[in-house]
């Protein structure tokens, strides 16, 4: 088991995004392991509300003291909301990774297949362990 926190209600991408379905909308952020790898987050660039995205598209950017990293859309659909609080307080990504969501996607693709392609918390935990983080 890794030392990182997990959200039991979320699914995880290999690129370290988490996605949580809330009232039919996919809420997306980055995992505790991802924020820990990045170190102190200083900047977040969010997508435009209304834009159409496909699963795997790079749609946001998170920048830490170390580097700039892409944040990808784990599911396809329309960006219906972004968390603009993160623009003023990007450090929330470090302190509360599963509360500090980046954007919400209203699914427009084959949601079941896209979610099935993601990892469960247990699988992601093993994946992070294996990656050596």
């Amino acid at each position, binding site marked *: 088991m890794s030392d990182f926190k997990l959200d039991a209600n979320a699914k995880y991408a290999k690129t370290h995004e988490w996605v949580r379905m809330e009232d039919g909308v996919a809420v997306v952020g980055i995992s505790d392991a991802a924020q820990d790898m990045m*170190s102190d987050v*200083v900047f977040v660039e969010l997508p435009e509300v209304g834009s159409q995205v496909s699963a795997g598209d790079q749609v946001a950017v998170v920048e830490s*003291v*170390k580097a*700039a990293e892409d944040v990808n859309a784990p599911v396809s659909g329309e960006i219906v909301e972004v968390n603009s609080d993160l623009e003023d307080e990007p450090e929330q990504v470090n302190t509360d990774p599963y509360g500090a969501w980046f954007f919400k996607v209203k699914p427009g693709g084959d949601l079941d297949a896209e979610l099935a392609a993601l990892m469960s918390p247990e699988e992601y935990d093993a994946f992070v362990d294996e990656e050596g983080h």
Partner: protein
Amino acid sequence: MQRTRLYETHVAMGGRMVDFAGWELPVQYPTGPSVEHQAVRTAAGLFDIDHMGQFELTGPDADAYLQHIQVHDVDQMEPWDAHYSLLLYADGTIVDDIFLYRLPDRWFIAVNAGNRAKDFAWMQAHTTGFDVELTDVSEETYMMALQGPKAEMILQRLTDADLDAVATRTALRAEVAGVPALLGRTGYTGEDGFELYLPADDAVEVWKRILDAGKDDGLLPCGLAARDSLRFEACMPLYGHEIDATINPVEARLGWAVGWNTDFIGRDAAFKVKLEKSKRLLIGFEMVDKGVPREHYEIAGDGEIIGYVTTGMKSPTLGKFLGMGYVPRAYIKIGTPIDIMVRGKPRRAKVVKRPFYKPRYK
């Protein structure tokens, strides 16, 4: 990869070890770089900088030799004085930046980790005709830095020497935690503080004693990330970033460090650049648009690529997105608009005054 004697200590303290110039060193501790940075600005931070190299220079021609191979006027230095300096190639570009200490019986020279072998070979090659002995004492000498407004108070608890009497950029020999050390009131963070040179065998003990002495005063062990952001805010150059073998001191705005009336290798070439006014100069800039400037990003002016970023980040102390970079002389005036190419997109920035953070020496 080389490890310092504090490697196990860093790991035990949760240090995140990375490769830096061939050394495995902590880039941060669990507190994180922003908190470590803040500790140095408001209290104190302790840095393992043993990767840096140290040379000793002795011999009847030591002063004349040193005047020949580096840019500072060493006649201006009294015993126990310390000073920043540069080694230049004959074409005026930079071999390395160094710190000189004039001790009563010898010179002591601190150099960058990544340049240690190169510097020693270069300095050794220029000893011809001088009766000097140059020795690399890096292995037996341990270097750590205690920096911040509370550094003196904390270190005073471990030594009988009167640290209040030690002026900025001077040194003394004293026992610290019972260990004989050379203490320089020097550093590379923009804060008051000390750099300690001590026997390598005592490093672990002294490190622990200093941390213990400052634990109630906000002293934190600090990693490479905080060291970089601290020197960046004070606009101190870092070799491989602001300065290298393609840059001369005038371009890097290090003319203040050069004793132009002395004769040293590279002097004529560097002076020519000074007289003719260099085509490019190092600037400081602040982002106007949102975006994080980073090293190697291109700088654009009037729609053309005109230069590049040498260091950029969100300044932990000022909260602004700041950078340094090289641009043509036409773009150096304070307030001049420039664009930083952030992941391929132009983001507006403006030239601002350097340093971003005014050093607070005693």
